[in-house]
């Protein structure tokens, strides 16, 4: 080999190496500058959505007690063109119909569309049920992951939790009010997939991670809620009533411990539930409260110094004509003190106490107790109740409002009023969302007890507790609300239901009991309302035992020490 040919070969080799180097450089440049121009037909641009679940709703005990959570399930999907091209439409419809429990003609209709490449055959199927579908050997069948909102306890706490609609937006209950926190933000992956829809990870352009929704912790305790719901189920069965609801609240803070309504619905199947069962009666049903409302007139009069507990009134032996109309008592009472008016629940006595106050002052107190306005609970659909302005009152109205007629309230308003008696006159805003936290632990919202007013002074609140305590003593109307070892301060109520065309129903009543315990230094307030009971009518017979049942369990569960300790005999 001559020197010349060696030089030429080296030169050629050098040129080739330089070309390789240039190619390497270009490749590096394109990689780093992102100017990828490869457009192989085997790749398809894709944008895969990364699902972001809604936050979990928890009870007051936190992470272990999930009330609403996400469940990953499957959508069974099909590529209709593939199935049509395989001439398997009839076979696929028959096989899948039997397995998925969907009518065969409906499935055939969805599959027999060769112009389409995608169709849902059945949505939200549990994984263990969905996976075997792929073993039927039908071409073009595939599964897609999807997240659904699920309520593991079904109808339990349904009116508080609410539900989410098809689009994943909260449509009722806490799901609606806390939607802005609960809703997550989905992420996505931009890149390419191959013909089998598998991602070509080296072709990925962008990955935006999903942001999970924040967790909402409620003040509700699922054990207290269970006690309440069980008691309501029992009264529904025993009284064959149209509805029943109850609220348990911490007196000092306004935290709701339980809020239950009957009839209830399963939020997992909200589409098939009746509208009537979806109504949160505890905050959305206004009723004439009857005798439980007498406490407002008595408290106002005591607070104004217009009467004292021992001030006596003539209860006219059960019938008293005022403004041309006769007002009756259930029994023929003669002279009763204010304390006995509460204990015996005299309509005439309460009306006379209100008259001493006068319309203007009485109305002011009604407003100060929050009547005619929302209490401000963090749930949608709260009603304001009905309280006509004093200018529109007829002469008779003051006597009727004093005994809980011509005024409409929600159970929540009654709970708030009674809680003020137990909280030295302070009216607290009821709330049931305790906190909102991100999965990372960051706190987005922390509820604090909030005073919304002080309609009465401390001494009046204490006097009211003492008067209400007598209601559950021997001779009072609320003896069935007694809890062994505890003094209960409460009030019964029975009100005839107003008819749509005017007047009152002769058969349908709303029976209620609202009470505080322990009476001396109350920890909890419970309101029980029973709509149209069939076997009995009086609040002391229908609602008071429900109160007693819930309270007896709740005080033990909440470790509220008894006021009277019965000693064990040896």
């Amino acid at each position: 080999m001559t020197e010349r040919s060696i030089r030429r070969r080296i030169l050629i080799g050098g040129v080739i190496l330089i070309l390789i180097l240039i190619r390497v450089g270009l490749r590096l440049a394109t990689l780093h500058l992102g100017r990828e121009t490869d457009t192989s037909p085997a790749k398809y641009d894709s944008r895969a959505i990364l699902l972001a679940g809604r936050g979990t709703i928890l009870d007051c005990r936190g992470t272990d007690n999930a009330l609403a959570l996400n469940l990953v399930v499957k959508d069974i999907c099909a590529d209709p063109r593939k199935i049509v091209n395989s001439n398997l439409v009839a076979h696929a419809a028959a096989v899948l119909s039997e397995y998925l429990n969907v009518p065969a003609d409906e499935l055939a209709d969805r599959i027999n569309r060769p112009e389409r490449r995608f169709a849902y055959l059945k949505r939200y199927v549990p994984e263990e049920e969905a996976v075997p579908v792929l073993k039927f050997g039908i071409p073009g069948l595939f599964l897609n992951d999807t997240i659904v909102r699920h309520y593991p306890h079904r109808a339990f706490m349904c009116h508080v939790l609410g539900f989410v609609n098809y689009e994943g937006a909260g449509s009722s209950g806490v799901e609606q009010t806390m939607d802005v926190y609960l809703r997550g933000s989905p992420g996505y992956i931009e890149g390419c997939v191959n013909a089998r829809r598998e991602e070509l990870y080296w072709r990925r352009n962008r990955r935006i991670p999903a942001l999970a929704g924040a967790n909402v912790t409620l003040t509700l305790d699922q054990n207290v809620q269970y006690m309440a719901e069980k008691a309501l189920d029992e009264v529904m069965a025993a009284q064959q009533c149209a509805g029943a609801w109850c609220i348990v609240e911490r007196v000092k803070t306004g935290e709701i411990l339980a809020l239950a309504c009957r009839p209830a619905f399963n939020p997992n199947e909200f589409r098939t539930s009746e509208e009537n069962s979806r109504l949160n009666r505890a905050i959305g049903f206004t009723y004439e409260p009857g005798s439980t409302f007498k406490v407002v007139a008595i408290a106002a009069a005591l607070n104004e110094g217009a009467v004292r507990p021992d001030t006596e009134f003539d209860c006219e032996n059960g019938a008293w004509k005022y403004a041309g109309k006769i007002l009756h008592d259930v029994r023929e009472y003669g002279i009763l003190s204010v304390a006995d008016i509460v204990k015996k629940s005299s309509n005439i006595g309460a009306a006379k106490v209100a008259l001493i106050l006068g319309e203007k002052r009485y109305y002011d107190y009604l407003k100060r107790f929050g009547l005619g306005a929302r209490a401000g609970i963090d749930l949608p659909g709260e009603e304001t109740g009905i309280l006509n302005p004093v200018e529109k009152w007829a002469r008779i109205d003051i006597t009727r409002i004093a005994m809980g007629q011509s005024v409409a309230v929600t159970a929540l308003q009654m709970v708030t009023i009674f809680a003020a008696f137990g909280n030295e006159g302070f009216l607290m805003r009821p709330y049931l969302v305790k906190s909102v936290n991100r999965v990372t632990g960051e706190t987005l919202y922390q509820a604090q007890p909030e005073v919304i007013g002080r309609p009465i002074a401390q001494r009046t609140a204490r006097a009211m507790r003492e008067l209400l305590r007598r209601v559950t003593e021997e001779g009072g109307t609320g003896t069935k609300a007694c809890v062994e070892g505890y003094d209960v301060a409460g009030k019964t109520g029975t009100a005839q239901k107003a008819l749509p065309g005017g007047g009152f129903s002769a058969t349908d009543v709303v029976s209620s009991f609202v009470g505080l315990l322990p009476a001396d230094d109350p920890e909890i307030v419970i309101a029980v309302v029973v709509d149209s009971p069939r076997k009995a009518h009086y609040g002391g017979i229908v609602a008071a035992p429900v109160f007693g049942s819930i309270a007896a369990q709740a005080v033990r569960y909440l470790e509220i020490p008894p006021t009277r300790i019965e000693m064990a005999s040896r």
Partner: protein
Amino acid sequence: MTMDGFIFPVPFAGLLAVIAAMALWYLWLGCRCEALGKELKRLEDEKAELTKRCLNEEYKWARMKSPESIDRALARHGIVMIWPRSEQIVRLTKADLEFWGPEGIAKHSRAPRRSAELAMHD
């Protein structure tokens, strides 16, 4: 260095070595990137799968420990639980604790039963 009388230039040999090293380094980087990409994808899939399993387990756990489920389980095993009557409850006040002291309470307490111990260890 000579090859049949030709002197191979050292700088050129150095250049070739650098080019070869760069090409190898580039190849190694490419392989490494691909391996990492594969690993990332595998871990992403695994994470998604684990999240899914976690959600489903959370659901089962929530179902299992609901008061209703516990009630049903108790009924299934014929266990009837009632709240104690007030005379069955022994309450110690702060004054009791101060009077007896921790040693006094320990002395007057019964030794825990064997079954209770077992239950605790379980």
